[in-house]
């Protein structure tokens, strides 16, 4: 009997097989569909279309500090430096071929879901024009506060999912299999529960995971949801983290864990490990963000699959009102007993960042905790001022110490 793989080994295996499948999609009679990380990819999986996420590829390159090289290349094509760093680095990759991975296969079609952002739609349109390829825009109006309007929004989204299925049937010349979709939904629902369980393990003191573990751990949820292997991966991951909890192993030892932080926004990918080390030296661990929770879906398998898909994809944090985002963050503050927060103004992710100043005002008022706000870019190092960020982090922890917040948890 073979030895059980660790979550890390399993992740590698799943990723390798997935990319192998993607690169040989045409050999196997499949199409490659580019899609947004938040999109009803279950429809793709059920219809045997290989989903590819240019964002993931961009993250790999930006984390490896390729941002400046790739973004500069695309700026010389007339694109401005304040567009999304994912988009710029991807368009730069198309121009230069520079990548730290094996690259990604070319697309046959696109699915852009604007619950994540409008930028991706525009970015995909640029890519589609290069090959005159079809783009399907899954338009998700903001999940506004009016409950009656929400029902109408879901109806509109269900109509569009039906249109999406029709679009895919035309593109593939194959009939869509609704029974297969139900099966895919079961996997998605199961892996979502496990993924959320994994994220929620940050509740323990000391926390066995930081947001950096969550950011690594979320990858499979992003690109392999709707599959049995995705379920297996999160079961393995949960088992491993539970073992740490049972042994009292934290990111920091219990006596050193002074500050349990909330992070608003996507990470600064190229400073990923530096930030973890720096914060750790002050007794700080970033536990979570709304961003990593974007893939904890709550699918209702008793409903029509298209309805539960529509409901789940329109209510993501990135498509919610600022009031709802604040409520979602407050839930996390309470659940994870957080006592500090970093609000990152990510200049190239306008979709998330334009809410941050208002969100900061609401959260600091409701928690009574001061916030560290800093502006930079998730992938373009030219907009990261090392000494300034470091100084602000130092000053922030000094403030927290002075206020005696290390012992407090977030207020209701």
């Amino acid at each position: 009997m073979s030895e059980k793989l660790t979550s890390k080994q399993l992740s590698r295996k799943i990723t390798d097989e997935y990319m192998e499948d993607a690169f040989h999609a045409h050999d196997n009679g499949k199409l490659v569909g580019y899609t947004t990380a938040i999109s009803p990819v279950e429809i793709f999986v059920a219809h045997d279309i290989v989903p590819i996420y240019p964002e993931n590829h961009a993250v790999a390159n930006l984390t490896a500090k390729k941002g400046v090289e790739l973004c500069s290349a695309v700026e010389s094509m007339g694109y401005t430096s304040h567009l999304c760093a994912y988009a710029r680095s991807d368009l730069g990759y198309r121009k230069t071929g520079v990548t730290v991975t094996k690259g990604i296969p070319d697309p046959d079609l696109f699915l852009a879901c604007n619950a994540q952002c409008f930028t991706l739609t525009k970015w995909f349109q640029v890519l589609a024009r290069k090959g005159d390829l079809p783009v399907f825009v899954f338009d998700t109006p903001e999940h506004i506060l009016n409950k009656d309007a929400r029902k109408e929004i879901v109806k509109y989204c269900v109509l569009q999912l039906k249109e999406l299925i029709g679009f895919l049937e035309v593109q593939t010349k194959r009939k869509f299999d609704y029974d297969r979709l139900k099966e895919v939904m079961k996997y998605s629902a199961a892996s979502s529960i496990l993924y959320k369980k994994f994220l929620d393990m940050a509740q323990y003191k000391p926390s066995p995971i930081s947001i950096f573990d969550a950011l690594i751990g979320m990858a499979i949820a992003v690109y392999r949801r709707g599959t049995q292997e995705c379920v297996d991966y999160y079961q393995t991951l949960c088992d491993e983290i539970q073992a740490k909890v049972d042994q009292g192993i934290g990111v920091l030892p219990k006596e050193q864990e002074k500050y349990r932080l909330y992070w608003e926004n996507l990470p600064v990918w190229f400073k990923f490990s530096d930030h973890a080390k720096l914060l750790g030296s002050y007794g700080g661990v970033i536990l979570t963000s709304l961003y990593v929770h974007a893939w904890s879906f709550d699918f209702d398998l008793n409903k029509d699959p298209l309805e539960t898909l529509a409901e789940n994809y329109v209510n993501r944090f990135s498509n919610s009102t600022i009031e709802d985002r604040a409520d979602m963050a407050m839930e996390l503050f309470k659940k994870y007993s957080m006592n500090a927060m970093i609000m990152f103004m990510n200049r190239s992710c306008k979709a998330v960042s334009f809410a941050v100043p208002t969100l900061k005002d609401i959260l600091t008022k409701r928690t009574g905790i001061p916030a560290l706000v800093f502006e930079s870019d998730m992938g373009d190092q030219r907009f990261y001022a090392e000494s300034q960020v470091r100084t602000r982090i130092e000053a922030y922890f000094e403030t927290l110490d002075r206020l005696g917040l290390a012992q407090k948890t977030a207020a209701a």
Partner: protein
Amino acid sequence: MWESLNLKDVVALARDPYPSIRQWARDTGKKVVGSTIADVPQEVIHAYDLLPVTLLGTHKPLKKAASHLPDNACSLARSNLELALSYEGDLFSGFVLPQVCDTTQHLSDIWRISFPEKYVESYLAPRQADRPSAHYWVKEEIERLIASLGKWTGKTLSNDALSASIAIYNENRKILGELYEIKRNNPGTISNLQFFAMMKLSMQVDKAEFNKSLKAIKDGLKLKKSKGLTDIVLVGITCDPPEVFDIFDELKLNIVGDTLVDGTRYLRGAVSLNGNLIEAMADRHFNLGFYSPIHDNVYKNFEEVKKLYYDMKAKAIIYVHIEFCESQEYDLPDLKNMIKKEGIPMHVLDTEYQTVSLSHILTRAQAFFESLKGGVL
């Protein structure tokens, strides 16, 4: 208030219409409802006996908006927010804010949170326009807006009231269309500044009154056929500040066609008064031209611009880029290449609301048109 204005009055009022709107609201006792661009079916607001006013930014300094929206946000969004937060907020009883992109989506939330005591409704425009579901959604949103305004005002909207408002809007578009035709065919009769001031003011004041002024202006025009003007097509979303039109006039350019939201996109398509009015308003939405945030095909934009250029026998295209408008910025490089490949001269004009210095715009435009006359591009 606005029924017997001459062109000079119109230009002056278009620069700052708010004192007159205040006076009008006081005199009539009617409430004022603001909307940012684009595509809010303002006929519905008008039919509730409210004054719909399209917000097109302020030229006064930014004081508060910067703490809500960072400096890399669309300058029109920041300028509109500033207008409401610092200068004219008290004039408005409510706002209907369309969502067409990430910035406008956040702007709606920030606005609602900033004005908790006022009526603030979002109008969720579809961000796809080529499928049946988009048509369904526009109808749903118009109906939701009608219900929402009804709840706020405590009134029920009658078909007659909506029909009357649509007729006023149709008339406004018709007269402006006729004035545009005169401007095209009789260069020098109406300046660029004057024409776009009429357009702007039409979107901001009571149309029933202003239509009378427009008719009188039209009837009183002394037609000219000035020589030496260069016909151009203006492409973009909006064009601000108004001094840019002064520059066009100074350079002897005659705008003969445009794709602006506060230009031809506003003028296009009368709403049919026969049959279901909501259906007819939805139909109109899909008969409007290309609009970058909701259309997914820049080829369509190119084809439209190209057709406009050839149909109008224009000599060049001026593309107005609003600083930090993502939607335009993703489209522009390819659009530029397509237009260049077609051999059409094109000049990109970078604008920013709150722009103080216009000398660089003048210098660049001058250089472009000098090279155009010299036949070198």
